[in-house]
């Protein structure tokens, strides 16, 4: 009787052990952190540093650099986006985290370059072991130019609202491509002398909003079985 009880107890222990091992294996596979210590989400702030996070209204990729206010030296720079007038630019959409950089404690100037002459600047103070969120008042718009052949690439100009000053230039794309500008009101002009096209469109850019400007005949509705349709004008 005692022997049988001992057997049962051993069986119970074995079963429990096996279950723990199975859960450990499954848990290990499903875990977000790897053996190297990397995990989804931002890593820990390194010792002796503070963290600067860029908040650009849902835009997760901006070209920016950081200047140390004491020395005047550039201490960090990121330029993931191509120039607005480059014919090869398009949105990759690969980044899911806001941009951040770990810096020594101190005062810095953060400069965010946009697709026009105006950049956005913020003075910040980084404190050891703490996050500093910098809100960058920028928005984005897309110019979709289509002709009889479909979407095509044409150059355009970005003006201030009064059409007094040209602020920048861009190139439309057959892919999805946004132009990042400081929040405000602008005018976009596309002139194509051979075809007689001259379009001037006002655009109001707000933080965290995306505007689409459609120029040319509207895209034909998708046939059954075709891919997604283009976004229309809001």
């Amino acid at each position: 009787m005692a022997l049988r009880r001992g057997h049962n107890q051993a069986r119970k222990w074995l079963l429990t052990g096996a279950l723990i091992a199975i859960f450990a294996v499954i848990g290990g596979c499903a875990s977000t952190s790897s053996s190297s210590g990397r995990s989804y989400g931002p890593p820990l702030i390194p010792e002796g540093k503070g963290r600067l996070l860029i908040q650009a209204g849902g835009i997760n990729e901006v070209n920016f650099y950081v200047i140390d206010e004491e020395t005047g030296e550039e201490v960090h720079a990121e330029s993931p986006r191509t120039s607005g007038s480059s014919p090869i630019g398009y949105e990759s959409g690969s980044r899911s985290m806001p941009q951040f950089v770990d810096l020594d404690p101190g005062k810095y100037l953060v400069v965010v370059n946009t697709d026009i002459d105006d950049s956005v600047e913020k003075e910040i103070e980084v404190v050891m072991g703490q996050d500093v969120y910098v809100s960058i008042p920028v928005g984005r718009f897309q110019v979709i130019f289509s002709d009889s052949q479909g979407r095509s690439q044409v150059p355009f100009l970005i003006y201030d609202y009064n059409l007094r000053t040209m602020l920048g230039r861009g190139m439309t794309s057959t892919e999805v491509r946004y132009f990042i500008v400081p929040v405000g009101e602008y005018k976009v002009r596309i002139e194509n002398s051979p075809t007689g096209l001259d379009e001037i469109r006002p655009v109001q850019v707000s933080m965290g909003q995306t505007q689409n400007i459609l120029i040319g005949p509207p895209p034909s509705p998708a046939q059954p079985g075709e891919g997604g349709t283009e976004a229309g004008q809001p």
Partner: protein
Amino acid sequence: MECKGRSSWFVVLAVLWASASWAITSPLKATIIDRYGNQHQVDKFTFQGRQDLEIYIQDQRKLMPLEKVARLRFEGERGDEEQRIVLVLRNGSEEKAVMQTGSSSSPHQDAVGGGSSGRRFAGVTTLGPFSILASDVREIVLRHPVGELPPADKILKASIITTEGKRFEVEDLLFRGKQRLDFFRGRNKRFIPLAKVERIDFQDGAIGEEFRPITATYWTGKTVMGTVEASTVRLSGETDRSYFERVNKAFTGESGSGPFGIGMHAVRHIRFKKDKSAAEMETGEESALEK
């Protein structure tokens, strides 16, 4: 009991998190007086979410940082698309300008992104979030921290030597309305603060190229190299006026004979003159350090 312990941990963690992170918002405070004479005390004051104003002084576009402004008065009517404004700056000077305020009565129906004017002043009052259309404002008095000095404004003096060998003595030199020169380092845009620079030398680009290499030497001896846009090609869609200003008025200022403007393609050298007061301050600092 256990639950109470857990909740207290959550409170402690929340307090720690709140103290460990914050968002940089506008530190500006202002008193806004609307067209009916009502006063609103506003914190975290911004215009369209920005801390600068887009104004036109003598028809030239300028971004005026709000931290330089002490008082702002609108002299137009509510229905005006753009209004004359008077800016009293913190250094005591007064500027008359034109500002696009957008009319509340005639929203831009064709504007992509909204049928109403987005030109609003915003902030926070004791009652909660606050925003007001720029066309409804009569006056704004900005409340800056007591004892905080306004950002120093230098009047830059320089000698400009053209590619033809002509020399001009220019005061209040600006690059496209700013005291900084935008340039490219590779494909990255950077700026050089003109107040910190002793000289800028422009080299010739190849014929037909839109960029010219430059070398800027700071007063500290540091040198910066890059390229500047110096295209004289007219762009498709460019108006006569914007083309003329882009090509012929990259640098502006005042010369002895009147207003001065020159294009980027025509400059060979710029030699800045050291501000006497700045030089005196530097020598004062040096002597203090020696002591």
